[in-house]
């Protein structure tokens, strides 16, 4: 079974909101209709967004870290928002596991938003329909786009490649490898919704130096063999260097 999802690397997210704006740009221009955007430059702006970047301070200054935390629909494997929908407008696709809203069936009762512990569904105040992240379902299979562009808008926009996109059920995919090897985790595991989106934790930054970087491979002296080259373990003249 395929389960498309995002894997978000909190270690490299810089909180630039490029994913937020590119998401809004793509999704407000789609065939489903625009997303509300009221008083964008005035007092008390409001509107519909599928994606937000929030900022948290972990620890106490000076021993603190600033964590930028992008949040969008997690496309749960057992989505609590789907069974509660009275009309069947909210559904999870069998073929790729994306949770979608059939806008034409939505009656705008907001029950699914109540039933989502993550608060990632937003009613559009103008369209009066429930809206949410579609994983850019109108991009990722879109044959009008070049294959390299068939990725969600937020993934395309991320300048630090903090957002990976792929099939988390395919053990060989980039996203599954990242989850496996870099400690990918789910949000609020206590409710058993099994979000498909994963987050990669902060890591210690370390410099890795390989053996061949310690010895200058193209040392001309070594090439010319002008000087006797003692073995690396043997004592040299000043007992301090090897070529």
């Amino acid at each position: 079974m395929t389960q498309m999802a995002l894997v978000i690397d909190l270690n490299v997210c810089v909180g630039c909101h490029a994913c937020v704006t590119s998401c809004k740009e793509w999704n407000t221009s789609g065939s489903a209709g625009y997303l509300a955007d009221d008083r964008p430059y005035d007092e008390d702006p409001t509107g519909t967004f599928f994606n937000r970047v929030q900022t948290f301070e972990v620890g106490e200054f000076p021993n603190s870290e600033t964590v930028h935390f992008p949040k969008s629909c997690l496309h749960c494997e057992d989505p609590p928002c789907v069974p509660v929908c009275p009309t069947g407008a909210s559904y999870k696709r069998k073929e790729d596991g994306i949770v979608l809203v059939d806008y034409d069936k939505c009656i705008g009762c907001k029950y699914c938003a109540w039933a989502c512990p993550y608060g990632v569904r937003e009613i559009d105040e103008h369209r009066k329909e429930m809206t949410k992240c579609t994983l850019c379902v109108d991009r990722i299979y879109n044959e009008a786009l070049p294959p390299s562009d068939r990725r969600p808008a937020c993934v395309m926009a991320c300048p630090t490649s903090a957002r990976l996109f792929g099939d988390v059920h395919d053990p060989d995919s980039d996203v599954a490898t990242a989850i496996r090897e870099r400690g990918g985790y789910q949000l609020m595991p206590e409710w058993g919704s099994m979000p498909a989106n994963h987050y990669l934790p902060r890591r210690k930054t370390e410099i890795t130096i390989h053996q061949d970087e310690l010895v200058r491979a193209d040392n001309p002296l070594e090439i010319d063999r002008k000087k006797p080259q003692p073995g690396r373990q043997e004592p040299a003249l000043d007992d301090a260097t090897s070529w």
Partner: protein
Amino acid sequence: MRPAFSVVFLTTLIGAGQGLFLALYCAELAGALQLISMPDGKIFFAVGSLISLVLSGLGLGASFLHLGHPERAWRAAAMWRTSWLSREVIVLPAFMALVALYGIGHYLNWSVTLAVGAAATVVCLALFACTGMIYACIKFLQEWASPLTLVNYLLLGCASGFTLAAAFAAFAADNLLKAYAIGALGLTLLGLLTRSASLVRNSRIKPRSSLQTAIGIRHPRIQQKSQGFMGGSFNTREFFHGRSRTFLRSVKWLFLAFAFAVPLILLVSGILITSAALLCAAFVVQYAGLIAERWFFFAQANHPQNLYYQAIS
């Protein structure tokens, strides 16, 4: 959660309508079993059913105000296999149809009213279950996810229905007045007991979600610095009542007084001096109290998504 008045009125109105119907059917059953002398049935039952129907209809109307697309409401019957809301959408009109049939049956002196009433009673109880389960089935809204939610919807609906029945009996069937008022008294007391139990339970809830599980960082001290936007959004409006703690506490005492204490006093004095005015007042006061109760029920539920919206910037 932010209490939606459409839902507050829906649940309180149909609750009273259902309770009134159950009161009517109890009288018919008791009459059939010859526990009481039957009142002049025809008008009493027909008008009673009509009042129950009007209350349920008003509730149904209020529910439409909750929808963004009321013209698509018919679709809501589709997912009855999984959704309690969908089940309610089916059961409420079914209940109204059966109550209408029950009233017409009495008016036209049909002999099958007892059977129609039995069917309506089953559907009525199913409707209480659906209404309660809509809220009780959301497991992370811990204030709601309890059998007490169901019990409260049942008992508070029945209590207001029986109080209304007592007031109605004062005009239409004097001999039932005392029985109804005593029934209302008992149900109100029982409702007070279970609602207090849920208040105590809710005051002791430990939220299972925390900022740590919400963003998946295991550190005792995490502070939100920005929610990602300066203005408001659906997330900041829909999931918080926007009132102070003091206001919330005042509403709690208000509903404890108006849904339970004052109606209890009015019912007792109504029984003692057989006053229609007192019984009518009891219903009006209790219904107002239940509106406050339902407002509080919604406002008290703390949605875990609020963890993500604790600081604007």
